[in-house]
């Protein structure tokens, strides 16, 4: 449940790199660019050179073998700096879908380029507020696919999409479709976090290949849970950063001739938030550990991690704004960037209410 020597080293290396190449100002610049790219190619290249996209995968599969614990440690650092890259969409989600749902041949063909970062893929699976196998309205007809997806991360910048669909028998399958294939229409949208998402509609779009078979249902569920845990790790990093920045401000800002950090009303609110933050952190580490040890109740771990990080990220972002006073609502302060990212993260892959409900069902409530 804690990082080993190698994972600590990996974390520190990535942290150093991000401090240099992707501090928060980098996100600010990216956000304000006219053509609004999803990420800076330079930064992504650097992350790939460090091996970040291959961190989790076992060495036998061409990865670096740091496991979910290693990738989670990277995501925490990413969350602290709001670094924009296709780590979540491609290196985590798309890789997991191929690894869990693909045939041996598909894995052999597709995974290496995702591990090296030479290709970028994203998963299009959401039609409402979260993925729901029962309500999919994307259909497979021979080698074509028709339907709509929303909130697809990095949609317009990926080389290809992995799209959940139902075949004629109602079985879940996943179509691999090039982003520029005929019949694919991507409407890109920059959300308040400065990052790129897209609504995608498919009209008899040509599918290059199908990931299909019995393993797809459980495999996709696992891939989704894995991504949920990694997103929670990012949210944990953001929450920690918010707490530390706020504590630092309270240690320095003076009013009534004293540091505002001496006011007990503020102290107690932060101390309570800290307790909740550590419970969320323990849940994230336990979930990463569940991934690495192939625990059979991964879904419970994932839903708990997402709910607790979602709630504390939202809470701490509000508290951080409030405790920075007027400064807190200026765009000049980075706090606002975390505030906005927290709201987007909360919605991605199912919000707290959804995951709480799923957890309740899993626990028989």
């Amino acid at each position, binding site marked *: 449940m804690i990082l080993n020597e190698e994972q600590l080293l990996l974390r520190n290396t990535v942290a150093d790199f991000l401090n240099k190449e992707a501090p928060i100002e980098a996100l600010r610049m990216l956000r304000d660019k006219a053509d609004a790219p999803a990420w800076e190619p330079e930064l992504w290249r650097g992350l790939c050179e460090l091996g970040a996209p291959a961190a989790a995968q076992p060495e036998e599969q061409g990865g670096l073998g740091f496991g979910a614990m290693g990738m989670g440690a990277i995501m925490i650092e990413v969350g602290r700096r709001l670094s924009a890259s296709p780590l979540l969409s491609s290196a985590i989600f798309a890789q997991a879908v191929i690894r869990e749902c693909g045939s041996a041949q598909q894995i052999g063909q597709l995974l290496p380029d995702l591990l090296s970062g030479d290709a970028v893929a994203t998963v299009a699976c959401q039609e409402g507020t979260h993925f729901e196998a029962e309500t999919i309205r994307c259909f497979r007809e021979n080698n074509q696919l028709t339907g709509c997806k929303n909130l697809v991360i990095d949609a317009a910048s990926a080389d290809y999409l992995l799209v959940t669909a139902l075949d004629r028998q109602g079985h879940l399958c996943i179509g691999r479709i090039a982003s520029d294939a005929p019949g694919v229409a991507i409407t890109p949208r920059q959300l308040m976090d400065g990052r790129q998402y897209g609504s995608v509609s498919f009209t008899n779009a040509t599918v290059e290949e199908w990931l299909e078979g019995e393993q797809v249902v459980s495999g996709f569920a696992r891939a989704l849970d894995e991504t949920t845990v990694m997103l929670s790790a990012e949210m944990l990093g953001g929450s920690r950063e918010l707490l530390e920045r706020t504590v630092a401000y309270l*240690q320095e800002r003076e009013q009534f001739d004293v540091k505002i950090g001496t006011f007990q009303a503020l102290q107690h609110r*932060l101390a309570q938030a800290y307790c909740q933050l550590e419970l969320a*952190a323990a849940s994230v580490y336990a979930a990463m550990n569940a991934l690495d040890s192939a625990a059979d109740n991964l879904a419970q771990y994932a839903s708990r991690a997402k709910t*607790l990080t979602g709630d504390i990220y939202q809470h701490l972002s509000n508290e951080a704004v409030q405790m920075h006073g007027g400064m807190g609502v200026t765009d000049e302060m980075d706090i606002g960037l975390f505030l906005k990212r927290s709201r987007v993260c909360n919605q991605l892959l199912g919000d707290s209410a959804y995951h709480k409900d799923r*957890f*309740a069902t899993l*626990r028989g409530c």
Partner: protein
Amino acid sequence: MDERDLFRQEVREWLETHCPVSQRQPIVREEQIWAGSQATFPSADAQAWFEAMRDRGWTAPSWPAEYGGGGLDPDQARILEQEMARLRCRPPLYDMGLWMLGPALLAYGSPEQKATHLPRIVRGEVRWAQGYSEPGAGSDLASLSTRALDAGDHFVVSGTKIWTTRADVADWIFCLVRTDADAPKREGISFLLIDMHSQGVSTRPIALISGESEFCQTFFDEVKVPKANLVGELNEGWAVAKELLKHERKLMATMESITEKVDVGLVELAKSRLAVTDQGRLANADLRARLAEHLMQADALSDLNELIYRGMKAGQLNPALPLTLKYIGTHEQQRKDELMLEILGADGLSMMSDTPELDRMVRNWAYNKAHTIAGGTSEIQLNIIARRGLGLPE
């Protein structure tokens, strides 16, 4: 199999052999085995279980064997704990000496004090009480005024302590007393061990909202205490007091495991009493969500404990982390109690119904209100977390 697996196997077999089946159920208050000259055993099984554990030194598993303890290293102690939990073995012995004074003596006691007191604690021969709080000194403990005057080879102690849990049946009490009235508050305090049977000690029980009277006011009227009973240096009792509080808070964070264990599965309780939908879910969606929240928090707390344990072992523990446990643990317990009461509805409004199970649950709800007060209130915990944990200014 490595050494630890072997140890686990040995422990498992030993417990299987020595823990009677009747001692493998949640503990209820009437059946707890409290140490001391007035100790009684609810059954022959309970006595056998206590004696087996005592003789193995496992009433104090991690204390050194030379004082009668189990001599286990942290890993082994944890294995024992896990195996006891797995079999649902009851705690074999209850005593504040075991939980609090012992660890403090191990850190600060003289060789003679350790040799005198620790073995008797392990063997459950003495019941200890805690004499910290006073009518005028609660959260602000350092303002205590019970005084100990130097009278040559002994002290003369006068004053009063309050909220002293079970002082009426205790054999000994560890006390904070003022030995220098002119020094700054924390620098004039000493830590004394006092025999409750001494001339001039008396107690008066106080009734609680749970219907019990667990604690007392304790009076000291010119009580003679030998100087050999001073723990640590004169006027340096505050350090001992703080060491002891560390153990008290650790204990309180996991209070559920030592207090009366009402093993209510809240989900089962709710489903057996309230409406359930066709899909087998609780129809009350709001309650369902709050139950899920509680289960998540409880799981997270157990993961946090695990994380702290592992972090400590690996030498990479953030020292702020353990400070959170008492606050989190006691509030979670109370949240659980409130959910229980809500689920019981009107059946949860009496402590004197004709269903003892039910009464016990309700009494615990009331009793557990004390957990966010005793051992340093929640507000004091938050002060500590904010200042010592987060580094906010005083």
